[in-house]
């Protein structure tokens, strides 16, 4: 049985990774999950300097989902390299994808340049779609010209292949996928969270200090599948699918829709072993369906 997939020349032992921001750099979940079993650890977004993030409350539960407005709190790339990448040295079987955030093109480039010499980093995921950060973040992800430009700029400086992480908060995500491809992206990942809002009716105020937050969880899964399908039929570069993946069925759905790999996000919060559970489910599915190579199911549903 082959579970290996390849994205931009980088081989992953299996297509299951976790979604940025839901898993730290793996440290907190290493008590529950053998990180060596994952296709990749995708780190929490890292900027050029430490970011404090948004005020609290940052979390709200909604039906079959949740809203978050963390605001990309992170320790900055220096601490990240010294501590988080060093920790990930212990897990040689898994790839490391570093999620990169910034307020401006210069900030993204600063991080990408710093990571260029880090051999533990296999790929970069460029976050141009965080709905909780006003400058940078989603501001880049909602304008195709900006997507293409930032992709091109980052690509010029990046030593590792780049994945552009797309926002679903757009009229037509295919346009953004095409823009990323035109800018030279090696792959795209989607979807980031959908902007939502929750109001406390007793207090008659917003639940989140940030008023709005990114919605994730099983409720968004069908939207993510649709968008992965649309993008897979629009661009030639590989897609990492994410959005509400909680079970192996959800992950297989993503691959059938055209994703080469799948990220598990919110599910980690209620099932710390979601990633490895999903992987086991996929292997059972492959046996039951006589699937020799996982690559053979990518995008077969047309």
């Amino acid at each position, binding site marked *: 049985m082959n579970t290996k997939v390849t994205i931009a020349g980088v081989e992953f032992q299996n297509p299951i990774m976790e979604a940025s921001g839901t898993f*730290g750099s793996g440290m907190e979940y290493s008590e529950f999950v053998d990180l060596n079993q994952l296709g990749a650890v995708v780190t929490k977004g890292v900027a050029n300097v430490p970011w404090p*993030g948004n005020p*609290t409350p*940052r*979390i709200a539960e909604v039906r*079959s989902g949740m809203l978050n407005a*963390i605001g990309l*709190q*992170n320790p900055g790339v220096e601490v990240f390299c010294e501590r988080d990448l060093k920790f990930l040295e212990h897990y040689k079987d898994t790839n490391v994808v570093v999620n990169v955030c910034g307020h401006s093109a210069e900030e993204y480039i600063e991080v990408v340049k710093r990571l260029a010499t880090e051999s533990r980093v296999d790929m970069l995921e460029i976050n141009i779609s965080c709905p909780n950060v006003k400058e940078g973040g989603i501001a880049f992800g909602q304008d195709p010209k900006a997507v293409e430009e930032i992709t091109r700029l980052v690509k010029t400086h990046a030593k590792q292949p780049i994945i552009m992480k797309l926002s679903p908060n757009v009229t037509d995500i295919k346009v953004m996928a095409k823009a990323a491809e035109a800018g030279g992206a090696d792959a795209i990942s989607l979807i980031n969270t959908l902007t939502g809002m929750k109001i406390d009716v007793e207090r008659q105020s917003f639940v989140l200090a940030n008023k709005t937050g990114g919605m994730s969880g099983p409720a968004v899964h069908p939207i993510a599948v649709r968008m992965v399908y649309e993008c897979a039929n629009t661009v030639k570069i590989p897609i990492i699918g994410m959005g509400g993946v909680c079970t192996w069925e959800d992950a297989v759905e993503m691959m059938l829709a055209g994703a080469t790999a799948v990220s598990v996000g*919110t599910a980690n919060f209620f099932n710390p072993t979601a990633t490895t559970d999903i992987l086991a489910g996929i292997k059972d599915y492959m046996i039951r369906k006589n699937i020799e190579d996982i690559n053979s199911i990518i995008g077969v549903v047309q």
Partner: protein
Amino acid sequence: MKVKETAKVLESSNLAQGVYSLRLSTTAAKYAVPGQFINIFSKDGSKLLPRPISICEIDKEQSALRVVFRVVGAGTEEFSKLVAGDEITVMGPLGNGFPLEGEKSVVVGGGIGVPPMLQLAKELPGTVVAVMGYRNDDMFLTEEFTDVASDFIIATDDGSVGVHGTVVDAMKENDLQADVIYACGPKPMLRGVAEYAEEKGIKCYVSMEERMACGVGACLGCVCQSTDVDDHSHVHNKRVCKDGPVFLSTEVEL
């Protein structure tokens, strides 16, 4: 060591209006210390996130934990309906407990901040004065505190029992002295207790609360403002679930 497993309900009861007690058989009890919490999961798949609930009592011999919680929404409502024999998914113990360092301690709890102070009062060496605040005479865990504390002072908002006012009023009225004060309750109460401690030059630990998602320090949802730069993100945000919930009162902005 943290476990995520199915716990069996050994006992359930209603202690006061909206306040419930569950005794759970779980191996998490083996690793638990006072001041830690457990995540309890709803059986309703549309309620994704676990509910963080403080540990009220730890029974190492029987490998059981007691939690006492207030019904504040649909999740806790569901837990309030559990009866002996039912099963429920739990994860824990989570967070850091109270350092057991007072020789002469005051433990202070307000409202649903009362329960975690019980196991603490039991385990603290030396004399322990318990000061618990309630809204009115619909109180809970009073017998237990009477048993374990050297002295037990009650404060009620409406004055129906004990000191009329807050726990801080009760502390002032009794001019309480200690080497260490431990507190859990709403933020204004913690602020008041911390001020009292500072005036008297007493070391003070507070247990903080914030909306959480993962409960293990990964999502950065539940941060509180810290006076010093935090170890994780090198800003001023300590994680309540992982770095706390217990902090020195001087370590956090109250």
